[in-house]
């Protein structure tokens, strides 16, 4: 009897027919576009035709196959298990299997102790991710592969999640990085994601097998895996069909008649129902009234028919689109352009201007301004009059349509921006953090997946009977929810409407964090390309229970605002490129590495024919600095400098034992203590090296929990580095408690800082000859520390005489006090300097380890480059009396945050502001961010939060900071 396995994956359906000997005699592979039952019926019919009258044994597998198998009463084989069955049968000598699918990634360790890993709730770095990235770069997946083959260098792209990677790639594209290099980097990101996310401390070695679509279709991806794992894997024949073959081979397969089953499947109706919400419009009339109302939103602003005379040019070089528009002094519009970015905005603007000059010779451009991610590059390329921060550009435009506007929500391709306006000034800003889910590109992606254009997809939504309730979460989660809804019988219309609602909910509840949507404001302007989608607009009005205003140029508001801005601010100091200049215009891109500091930024140099240069990719101003070398007052740098005195790794006690200290988490504050303690005890001290991405990659194989914060995950790299230094002892104590500074109700460390030493001990292979000391210690009680230190050392067989320990502890506490005092002292000096020089001050509030440049990505220097003084939270916290917080104030580091916020709030100094650094995945910050915000806002201060991860989009950070300065300056 033939054995049949049907593998219903997230995007494709695969079928394998095995003969009596277990050989593959027929197979098929197709995209199912969520029409699972009809596709399955078709496959069964084909089989019935091929083998007429034969009964077969059949089983279903695959992530999207469980529901249908359940409902039809067919045997279901879990897909990883199926893979394993097939591999054991076909390639029994295999040790490890890496299988990538549409939305899932798996590693199977066969060998002696079987282990199976699947990606969890986070599904970055899979086939869907590669497709998405190809789409972003405007190439087919095959072209992406071809591009990657020619690459010369690699960029670091966040590998955690497709959405993150997207926000890394976009700036690279905008900065003019080579497509081929980005293509290669995308494949390497997939590799890193798989290795870091799934290996979880177990080495990938032995005979390696590559399975699944992406690894079959992209040889470059296989090469990238080979390169990273330093091995050579094989991609076997039928690599797409291992899951379906495994299902076919399963002993649980059931005997069926294909023709009969085809009939049942074709008539299949899902049993479960999906959760729906109310329809967007009850009927056509309701929609017509809605459409009319919004037509009136842009009364008084017309599109110019016959252009003449002075006009102002506004350009918005955004993340996914490039927009440009002209306006006259009355604000009437002319010649709008709205094009996908396609990775390089420069030729688009060149064509726009060339056409404009050719078609309308009597238009005189009296002023110009540019905004958006590509602001600086476009300014250099074309001699645009001024640059303007996106937030200001948008407000300028919105105010033109509605002078009383008090709330603006802009949902673009990749960003969500919200501002509250009070007294004609931007009062608070909300931007989506490092995550671009729920934006326009999100809807676009789903439209594409379901086989529609975005316009058709949006239209479908309007009269959906029962929009699917999808919640408000990241794209990857959404994929699974959509899949489930489809399984449960939701129509494309219901899904499209449901996604529109989820975009709105994401903005309201995740980005704005609004508790009561009816209180957003009284005059709300919504804009951004996404709001041109009537379904989204309607969903928004329904959710907040209010009518809002959507300008006709909702998608062009940035450019329009820039044009209006130019009208007021372009003083005509630079001359916009003219027709002659455009003819000769040339743009050359080259790449180089900056050696200005240990960051070694990969720079992209854009050379324009007007002799100007634009350099991108730099984390600080060093490579682009002109002669005037501004003095920096940066307490982050000062702290690093103080600590560097303890990082010299000298042999101070020849012949004595060496202790290794990892430069991670709380060691960024306690290094002076531990160094002095061990030095005083006569040990030589070696400290792990500077953090950088290479160091991180070195340790990523041993990270057991990929969703922990980046500062914690870096610890694995530091330990690999320490092991190379070959010390006799490794010292990294567990510390439930932190130092006690008396601000709060307790003085805990967060669980990760407190116990990461146990994760290291359990997952990093520490050689037997080294003693790893990870016992529990607290510095809080100075009287008993020495006694407990002796105990902790003794537990690992290292004896330390108590008298020595006491003496050493005394020195250690003194060193710690000196360090903290120096920070406070210097902080005070900087604040004084700022006052004298009239410089703005930013309290860049984080935790001690945020001073690591690999963790903060140079945000401190960026702030200095913008002309401000940077101080730390621990340099001002002590100036505040203890006070009652509205959270349980129980962590020492976070107590400093609240105190620092209080200091800024109480200072009554418009030049003094706080920016909070938040590590992605830091659960504690779900508590602290709202509290810090509340402390600041009760005194009318702006709250700015920057989320940082393995990678940070510095472009977005810059926008945030510039907005902050622009607003603070206006206040």
């Amino acid at each position, binding site marked *: 009897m033939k054995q049949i396995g049907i593998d219903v994956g997230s995007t494709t359906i695969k079928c394998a027919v095995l003969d009596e000997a277990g050989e593959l005699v027929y197979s098929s592979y197709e995209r199912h576009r969520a029409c699972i039952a009809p596709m399955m019926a078709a496959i069964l019919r084909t089989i019935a035709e091929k083998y007429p009258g034969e009964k077969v044994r059949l089983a279903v597998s695959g992530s999207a196959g469980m529901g249908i198998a359940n409902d039809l009463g067919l045997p279901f084989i879990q*897909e990883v298990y199926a893979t394993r069955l097939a591999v054991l049968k076909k390639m029994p000598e295999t040790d490890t299997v890496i299988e990538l699918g549409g939305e899932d990634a798996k590693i199977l360790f066969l060998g002696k102790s079987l282990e199976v890993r699947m990606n969890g709730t986070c599904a970055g770095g899979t086939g869907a991710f590669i497709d998405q990235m190809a789409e972003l770069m405007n190439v087919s997946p095959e072209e992406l592969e071809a591009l990657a083959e020619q690459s010369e260098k690699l960029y670091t792209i966040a590998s955690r999640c497709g959405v993150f990677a997207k926000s890394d790639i976009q700036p690279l594209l905008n900065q003019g990085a080579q497509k081929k290099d980005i293509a290669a980097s995308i494949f390497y990101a997939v590799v890193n994601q798989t290795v870091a996310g799934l290996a979880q401390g177990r080495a990938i070695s032995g005979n390696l097998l590559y399975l699944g679509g992406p690894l079959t279709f992209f040889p470059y991806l296989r090469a990238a895996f080979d390169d990273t794992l330093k091995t050579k894997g094989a991609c076997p024949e039928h690599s797409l069909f291992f899951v379906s073959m495994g299902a076919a081979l399963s002993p649980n397969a059931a005997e069926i008649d294909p023709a009969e089953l085809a009939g049942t499947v074709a008539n299949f109706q899902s049993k479960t129902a999906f959760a729906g919400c109310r329809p967007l419009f009850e009927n056509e009339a309701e929609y017509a009234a809605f459409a009319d109302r919004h037509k009136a939103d842009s009364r008084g602003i017309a599109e110019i028919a016959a252009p003449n005379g002075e006009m102002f040019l506004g350009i918005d070089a955004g993340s996914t689109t490039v927009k440009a528009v002209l306006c006259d002094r009355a604000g009437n519009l002319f010649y709008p352009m709205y094009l996908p970015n396609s990775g390089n905005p420069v030729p688009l603007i060149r064509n726009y201007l060339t056409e404009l000059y050719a078609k309308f010779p009597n238009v005189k451009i009296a002023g110009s301004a540019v905004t958006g991610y590509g602001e600086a590059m476009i300014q250099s390329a074309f001699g645009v009059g001024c640059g303007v921060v996106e937030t200001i550009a948008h407000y300028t435009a919105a105010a033109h349509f509605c002078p009383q506007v008090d709330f603006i929500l802009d949902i673009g391709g990749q960003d969500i921006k919200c501002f509250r306006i009070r007294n004609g000034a931007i009062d608070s800003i909300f931007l989506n953090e490092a995550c671009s889910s729920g934006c326009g590109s999100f809807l676009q992606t789903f439209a594409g997946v379901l086989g529609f254009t975005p316009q058709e997809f949006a239209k479908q939504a309007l009269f959906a009977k029962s929009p699917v309730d999808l*919640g408000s979460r990241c794209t990857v989660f959404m994929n*699974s929810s959509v899949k489930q809804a489809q399984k449960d019988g939701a129509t494309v219309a219901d899904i499209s409407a449901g996604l529109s609602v989820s975009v709105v909910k994401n903005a309201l509840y995740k980005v704005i964090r609004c508790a009561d949507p009816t209180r957003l404001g009284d005059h709300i302007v919504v804009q951004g390309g996404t709001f041109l989608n009537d379904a989204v607009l309607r969903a928004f009005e329904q959710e907040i229970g209010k009518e809002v205003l959507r300008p006709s140029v909702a998608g062009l508001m940035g450019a329009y605002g820039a044009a209006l801005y130019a009208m007021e601010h372009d003083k005509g100091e630079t001359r916009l490129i003219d027709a002659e200049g455009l003819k000769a215009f040339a743009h050359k891109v080259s790449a180089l590495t900056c050696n200005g500091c240990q960051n070694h930024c990969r720079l992209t140099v854009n050379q324009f024919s007007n002799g100007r240069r634009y350099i991108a990719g730099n984390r600080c101003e060093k490579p682009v600095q002109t002669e005037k070398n501004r003095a920096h007052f940066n307490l982050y740098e000062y702290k690093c400098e103080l600590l560097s005195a303890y990082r010299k790794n000298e042999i101070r006690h020849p012949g004595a034992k060496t202790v290794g200290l990892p430069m991670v988490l709380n060691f960024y504050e306690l290094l002076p203590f531990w160094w002095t303690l061990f030095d005083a005890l006569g040990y030589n001290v070696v400290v792990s090296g500077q953090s950088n991405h290479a160091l991180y990659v070195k340790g990523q194989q041993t990270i057991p929990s990929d969703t922990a914060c980046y500062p914690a995950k870096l610890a694995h790299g530091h330990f690999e580095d320490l092991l190379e230094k070959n010390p006799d002892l490794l010292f990294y104590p567990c510390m*439930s408690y932190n130092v006690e500074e008396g601000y709060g109700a307790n003085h805990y460390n967060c*669980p990760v800082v407190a*116990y990461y030493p146990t994760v290291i001990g359990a997952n990093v292979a520490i050689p037997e000859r080294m003693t790893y000391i990870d016992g529990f210690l607290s510095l809080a009680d100075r009287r008993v520390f020495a006694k407990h230190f002796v105990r902790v050392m003794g537990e690992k067989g290292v004896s330390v005489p108590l008298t020595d320990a006491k003496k050493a502890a005394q020195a250690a506490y003194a060193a710690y006090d000196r360090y903290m005092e120096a920070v406070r002292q210097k902080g005070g000096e900087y604040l004084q300097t700022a006052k004298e020089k009239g410089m703005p001050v930013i309290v860049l509030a984080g935790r001690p380890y945020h001073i690591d440049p690999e963790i903060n990505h140079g945000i401190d220097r960026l702030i200095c480059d913008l002309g401000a003084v940077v101080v730390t939270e621990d340099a001002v916290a002590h100036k505040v009396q203890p006070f009652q917080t509205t*959270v349980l104030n129980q962590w020492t580091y976070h107590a400093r945050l609240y105190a620092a916020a209080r200091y800024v709030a109480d200072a009554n100094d418009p030049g003094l502001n706080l920016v909070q650094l938040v590590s992605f*995945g830091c659960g504690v910050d779900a508590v602290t961010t709202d509290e810090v915000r509340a402390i600041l806002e009760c005194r009318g201060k702006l709250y700015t939060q920057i989320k940082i991860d393995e990678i940070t989009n510095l472009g977005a950070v810059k926008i945030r900071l510039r907005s902050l300065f622009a607003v603070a300056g206006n206040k």
Partner: protein
Amino acid sequence: MTKKNCKLPAEHGFPNPPFTKEMKATHTILAPDIFPIHMLLISEIFRMYGYKFQVLHDSGKPVIQKGLEQLHNDMCYPAICTSGQQLYALTSGQYDPHKVALIQFQTGGGCRASNYIWMLRKALHNMGMDYVPVLSLSFSKMEKSSGFRISKLMMMKGIVAVMYGDMLMLLKNQVKPYEAHAGDTEKTVERWVAELAAQFRKNRGLFGKAFRKNMRDIAADFHAIERKKVKKTKVGIVGEIYVKYSPLGNNGLEAFLEAQNCEFMVPGVLGFFQFMFDNQKTDRKLYGGSIRGAFIAKAGSALMRKVEKIFIETLRQYPDFVVPTPFSHICELGDRIIGRGVKMGEGWLLPAEIAELLEKGYENIICAQPFGCLPNHIVAKGTIRTLRNLYPNANICPVDYDAGASKVNQENRIKLMLALAEETEAGRADDQSNPRRAAT
């Protein structure tokens, strides 16, 4: 854009009304449904002391949605679920908001859970319901309210109630998968909850002989339920204290496992209490610190050791029931895996319970945790490697729960674990039927 932002108060903060003595008579205390069986018994103890105490059973999407609306969405899932349940009830129209108070457990540990009550207060403030008192239920008296005092005797009674809950849960889980007549087990649970509640109301059944007798009778009753001899896959469930027990938190995990032909074992709540007392002793040993705290902990531990002994002795009478492991042995198991000082969240207890289950033959372990749970980076995923080295047969499956995580995904992962379990089982059967293979 919270209300707070819209209308700036002069000072940062909001009123935080106390629970007065008078409120004891007028206000109903609403508690989230944390441990399904136990909470019903605990509420009886509160009633015994004159409180109006109501355990909420609201569930489903609207409850979660309420939580998401009012709490920071990066807050851990148990906070979203428990607060969501309370806020949902508060706005459902079933209660007069001026006549209720909310209660949350507070361990005072270093993880975010100690902040739940503050998150709840913030949410109430944003909803314009500042006047609703929020109570903290903890062993360490973190917050005091004049009308809400838990005496030592009351706490002891509470511990006994939890003990009964553990007994009922443990037996239910062992009998239900095999019951010959569907519904017998649930009926027995219901009958005993009602019976115990009736006894509690007369202040009986809590100590001494009555307690022993009840425990014996419960065991006998469950043992008397007619059972079939069927093969079930044995699954152990550990994890974060809320999501491992609550169907709202774990998407109906137990029902799913029942449908997959499994018998599951979830270690009791008592172990967690013992763990908390043990932490106080450990803290004193590791860092010095309050003698008083350590003394109370010692007294608490002693009481629990006593009830635990009765528990174990009772069940020893029935060789076909799995007897709980004494806490002292759980400590030993934990010490082989992770330091006893790891105390935040479920701390060292979590891997120790995995080891306990493995020892008892529950080789397939689901570790249920909220997505992004900080302690679980350390004590769950962080210890799996150590556990696998110690117990090569362990088939451990961590599952993340979150408002956004899809049920399909979670169930798919569990199915993988079950497929491997089935194969191991089949392999064993083969070995038995083929003595030559078993020998090699």
